[in-house]
């Protein structure tokens, strides 16, 4: 079978094309999903891409979480569907309470666009299975509101439960505990601020370190 991975377009999404390209590069079949439709088109997994959904008005991700497609995403995520939120997608997943915590303005207040070093702390999720735990990777970060925060108790629970998926080696935005990405308790929902879909080739990115997120899902879905 071919892994069919849905990629949602919200108004203001920017990175859906690159997420789809990364899915293809990993051997999967991207399925275009539209924010206004309550339909996942039978996708085996779903990616919420980066961008500025609804202009990030009110608060990043705060409006997108109410779009019709998110009703389906939330239900499917609870039933175990692999879901990946990248950057704005991560913000939407936090707003939808599918992931713990929130993303606030970067320390330093500026948009930060640079290649960052990450350590994969949890190689057991459907999105990180291709990485041996502890592997260090280089992936672009590009966000203005990328500082991860959560209540102290929640942070402890994330650490204790192995829910910190990726961590910055050199914290670029003031994230709590240098957290770059987390997962839910079940591990099927993953969100991160850096952009693995922009690290799939030497030509247009810092390398191909990010491809593992997509090949992980493809191999999980085809049962390899």
């Amino acid at each position, binding site marked *: 079978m071919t892994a069919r991975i849905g990629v949602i377009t919200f*108004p203001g999404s920017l*990175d859906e*094309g690159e997420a789809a*390209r990364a899915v293809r590069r990993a051997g999967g079949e991207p399925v275009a999903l539209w924010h206004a439709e309550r339909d996942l088109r039978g996708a085996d997994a779903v990616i919420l891409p980066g961008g*500025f959904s609804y202009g990030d008005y009110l608060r990043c991700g705060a409006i997108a979480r109410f779009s019709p497609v998110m009703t389906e995403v939330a239900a499917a995520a609870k039933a175990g569907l692999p879901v990946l939120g990248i950057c704005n997608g991560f913000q939407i997943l936090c707003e939808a309470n599918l992931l713990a915590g929130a993303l606030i303005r970067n320390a330093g207040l*500026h948009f*930060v666009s640079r290649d960052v070093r990450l350590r994969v702390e949890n190689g057991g999720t459907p999105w990180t299975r291709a990485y041996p735990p502890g592997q260090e990777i280089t992936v672009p970060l*590009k966000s203005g509101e990328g500082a991860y925060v959560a209540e102290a108790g929640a942070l402890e629970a994330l650490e204790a439960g192995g829910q910190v998926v990726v961590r910055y080696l050199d914290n670029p935005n003031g994230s709590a505990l240098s957290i770059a990405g987390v997962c839910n308790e079940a591990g099927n929902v993953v969100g991160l601020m850096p952009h693995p879909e922009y690290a799939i080739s030497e*030509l247009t990115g810092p390398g191909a370190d990010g491809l593992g997120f997509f090949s992980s899902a493809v191999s999980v879905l085809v049962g390899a």
Partner: protein
Amino acid sequence: MTAPDTVTRAAASPDQPQPYAELGLTRAEYERIRQLLGRRPTDAELALYSVMWSEHCSYKSSKVHLRQFAEKAPPSDALLAGIGANAGVVDIGGGYAVTFKIESHNHPSYVEPHQGAATGVGGIVRDILAMGARPVAVMDSLRFGPAGAGDTRRVLSGVVSGISFYGNCLGLPNIGGELAFDACYAGNPLVNALCVGVMRHGDLKLATADGPGNKVILLGSRTGPDGIGGASVLASATFGGDGGHSAKRPSVQVGDPFLEKLLIECCLELYRGGLVVGIQDLGAAGVACATTELAAAGTGGMRVRLDAVPLRDPALGPPEILMSESQERMMAVVEPASVPGFLAVCAKWAVPATVIGEVTGSGRLEMTWHGETVVDIPPGTAADQGPVYSRPLARPGWQDKLAADDPAALPRPSGASGLRAALLSMLGSPGLADTAWVTEQYDRYVRGDTVLAMPEDGGLIRVDEETGLGVALATDGNGRYALLDPYAGAQLALCEAYRNVAVTGARPLAVTNCMNFGSPEDPAVMWQFAEAVRGLADGCAVLGVPVTGGNVSFYNQTGEAAIQPTPVIGVLGVHADVRLRLSIGFATDGARIMLLGRTAPEFGGSAWAHVLHAHIGGRPPRVDFDAERALARVLADAAASGVACAAHDLSDGGLAVALAESCLRGGLGCQVRLPGDAFTYLFSESAGRAIVAVRPGVEAEFEQICAAHAVPALAIGTVGGPCLEVEDSFTISLAELAGVHRGALPAILS
């Protein structure tokens, strides 16, 4: 609400005083409008003419000079649309065409830096969209007052945050540009934004309103009171010496990048569906400009119901609606049968769209307000037949004295320690320092096709993933050179941009330009402008790259003090295979470093004289177009054959700065031996030069390429090690170079 000034009323009250001077029109221009109409204009007509005949929209002072770009244009079969269209369109092969243009947003960016710069990006992006292309990248050429000055921090931080906010949200990678500082730009910052778009050949759209009966649709933002008079009272006048920027703040537009992103996707879907006959973006002069230009370029007539224009502020009347520069708006001409389909696409993207009129065969542009006619003019009189001035020009009296002030008389660094200290001073100076503080606020990755971006010499975007076809872009300008000699200065800017495109391995194809000058009413400024235009036109003719479009920004002066003449030149090139691109970075251990071109002791206007001595005088470097062309061919061959592994153009700061930048970019040091006077080789800014790192083992092949194009090439050293080492002179570790180069701007700006 007071009753609108109608055509009937205007005819009946010929002597009613009108505020033409407040709107920026001269007495003679006002009389000309009366003569053209055979009556006094209505308030709405007066507003319309005032913005259409403004310097910004009509090019009335520059037109007589700009003609040379067409008259002297080299033969080129790559041009699908040229000057006069919203942006030039260039054939790059493979069925693809690209369109690109650079435009200034200088005045708004001083008054309100964040919104001024943001809407500068928004405006140039709509220009590209209006040609039928998908915008794929932006660049920004920025100039500010002294880096340490408090007002510079206000302006620079605001400009950068505006570009970051708008461009990032729009999803367009920012792939390069310039950052320069000079006291002359305090109070008159230059913010020039470039956009490039890609389309298939058949997708070209033109701004014409053809076919009587076709509908005129306004789509995008509602019209508000922002930016009224932006083109006339703001962009076409100098600031008073009293810091009058806050009083002009309402003339600055306010941007909504989210709506612009929707507008882009909406328009591209409309184009794909064949639902558009003609389209024009709304920029300077808003509805006034779009209606007159569409009508004048098309069948010639148009009827518009101004009361149908959706408003953000119900108090606006016809003059304000015509002059408003509210952002994120486009005007389309649509066949009646296509209107339902058109509106359905707009609804899908939640873009408001309203039918506001139709094309007619009357030859008149007629506008009504609740049934009464408030505008009735031949559209060509506003769009094409504005005033044209041959303004007096005079070579400034101080020009000769400036040329005689030769930097040869300046004390030069003596010995190894002096040369070392000079290099470090230059690398840590604001104009040569690492720009990451600025560029890390821009998304360079979005869309996934960015192959090269700053701090590379040129930006490079992949167009076709299968074949590797791509486009390279660079913008360059040097106010110091242009002050010393505006003719040569414009040509040096052209040469540098041409070279910066060539070092990526691309073939330069076409030129856009943004001419930033002081007041055209000053004969000295007008002379500088005329010389720069003549220089650029002559240079483009020799290099074989046509000017496809551009923009003139006058009145960059406060009181009597004009900026340095600053022609900013953008060059576009085609890259046959972006996988073979060259970076500036030294990353291959053992690569041979070759210095290409001739080095002469040329220090007039140089970074060395500027940074070390605050000196400007003498002659700028000599221009040699044959050498530039030959160098570009060597670089293209060296990239295509794979013998080169890095290449970097030599410009500001000469060889010394270029070597340091290549070491820092690639992470490897180098050892070089200079073939003559160390000071001259390190800091001269002779044009037509580049360094190339050649892969170990293929040196002979590279030398053959140089010989074939008769380009002088000297082997000056080798890549490797942790230091930049100049034999028999000095050594600087990469760590020390990095500390100085990367630390400078954060120390000043953070």
